[in-house]
């Protein structure tokens, strides 16, 4: 199995200002990071589809020194309006945990 919950030792999400959510994926080790940080399921197209946002706005930052992948995307609506369900975005990473990752054959492109 290669679900995010197994590949990563820790995943968190948080608001980054009222208009953005940012997710940090902490990988267990170098091998996992190199195989999966650039997996298609973690690239902007897939993240855009998962969260219902424009893929062109999704940011994807592999941080090899820290073995962390940072993903940021704009909220569908600004934080705190009438339909808000997660004020601080702290639970938004949950739906990523079940996502099955395919190793990127090219590894992490610089």
């Amino acid at each position, binding site marked *: 199995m290669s679900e995010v919950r197994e590949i990563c030792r820790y995943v968190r999400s948080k608001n980054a200002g009222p208009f953005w959510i940012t997710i940090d994926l902490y990988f267990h080790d170098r091998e996992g990071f190199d195989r999966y940080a650039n997996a298609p399921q973690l690239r902007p197209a897939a993240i855009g589809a998962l969260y219902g946002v424009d893929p062109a706005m999704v940011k994807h930052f592999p941080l090899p020194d820290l073995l962390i992948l940072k993903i940021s995307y704009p909220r569908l609506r600004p934080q705190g309006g*009438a339909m808000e369900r997660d004020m601080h975005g702290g639970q938004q990473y949950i739906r990523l945990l079940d996502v099955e990752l395919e190793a990127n054959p090219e590894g992490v492109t610089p």
Partner: protein
Amino acid sequence: MPPRLASTTNILVPTGALGLGMTEQDVATGLAAGAHAIACDAGSTDSGPAYLATGRPKYSRAAVKADLLILMKAQARAKIPLLIGSCGTSGGDMALDWMRDIALEIARENGLKPRIALLYSEQDAALLAARAAAGRIEPLAPMRTVDAALFGECDHIVALMGPEPYIAALEAGADIVLGGRTTDTAVLAAVPLMRGAGAGAAWHAGKTAECGGLCTTHAREGGVMIRVGKDGFEVEPLSAVARCTPRTVSSHMLYENSDPFLLHEPGGVLDVTAARYEPIDDRTVQVTGSRFVPKPYTMKLEGAGGSGWQTLMLVGIQDPGVLAEIDRFVGQMHEVLMERVRNSMGAEAGVFDISLRPYGWNAVSGTPVDPAAPPPREVGLLFVATAATQELATQIAKTCNPWFFHLPLNPQTPMPSYAFPFSPAEVERGQVFEFKLNHVVHVDHPNELVRTEFVELGEPAYV
């Protein structure tokens, strides 16, 4: 290990937010270690738009006063400046006045007579609309336009200050500077910049320490000391149990930041792409290689205003039959309630919305649950009515009440009663607020949109 930095400016950052709590011991440790100033912030947009839209602070008066008392006594004892940014959560004028009154009360009760500067950065909607018309306002992603009407929809608008108004107030003789909305980093970078520290080092130190102990191994254990030099800075926890490691310090750049390398500030961009993080000892980290790239001076705008009112109801459901088909149940409940309001209230209800959120099932995400998932053991079904006034939202809730309470899963089953925890069942939540602005305004001078006032203690007006 690299050698220690020379000729540093040392800033005691006692907490990530005034009102979270701090100890006199940690503050004393920082003073004994040679702090040149004490600085922290007291606000953020983090907890949503209500604080800016209403001007009311997030933390209790007692919690803020307890922290401020420790800091004002330390300021008086050490005779070093105390800087607090984003006072009263939003940093709006009302929130800053709230903080000023607490400071004056502390001064009076403790016989302290500091010279206090107040930096106001709330902005007038008409002035900003005029600046927008003059092409001096730009949207920030994900916003793409500058709609001048947005300014008028805000109840309060603040512009985020940089370090310059703090430096000007200190140069004018302030002992304590209480600021309206300020970037978290600027309030910590101000004294290092004033004393000639390197800009990259000062801004990166400010970003590192903005959440107090969050850049250490013990996030909730007090604050940190930053020592800022020409080409780098060092960061060390105040608490004896906490440690800073290259990892805890470098990963803090990720926190609540959509870009891990770049941070946009009023007069430029902090770029930490080439930053190096090295341990000095087992609890102190030295950071070098951060750059600050100057840009035309802009101030970020935050604005929030009201949009509708909400009334809530909550029922607990343990009925296994209902829970086995919870999606169908919630779907038909929503249809029944909407129809009930349309039939009973008609046009009088105005534009309204009813949102049903089954906590214990999928209320947090609002997305469909895997059909193979087992049913929940119990669910708290939250009813949220949104309407143009509080009275209408409450009338909608009251109109729905019997159906929300008694609706069966299937028409032929005997009438159930779900578990209301409250009487009356409805809870008036108040107004809904929204963030309306995500823009920057260009200014010719950093202090152009800032109003500075001094409070001279000991004069008759305050005795």
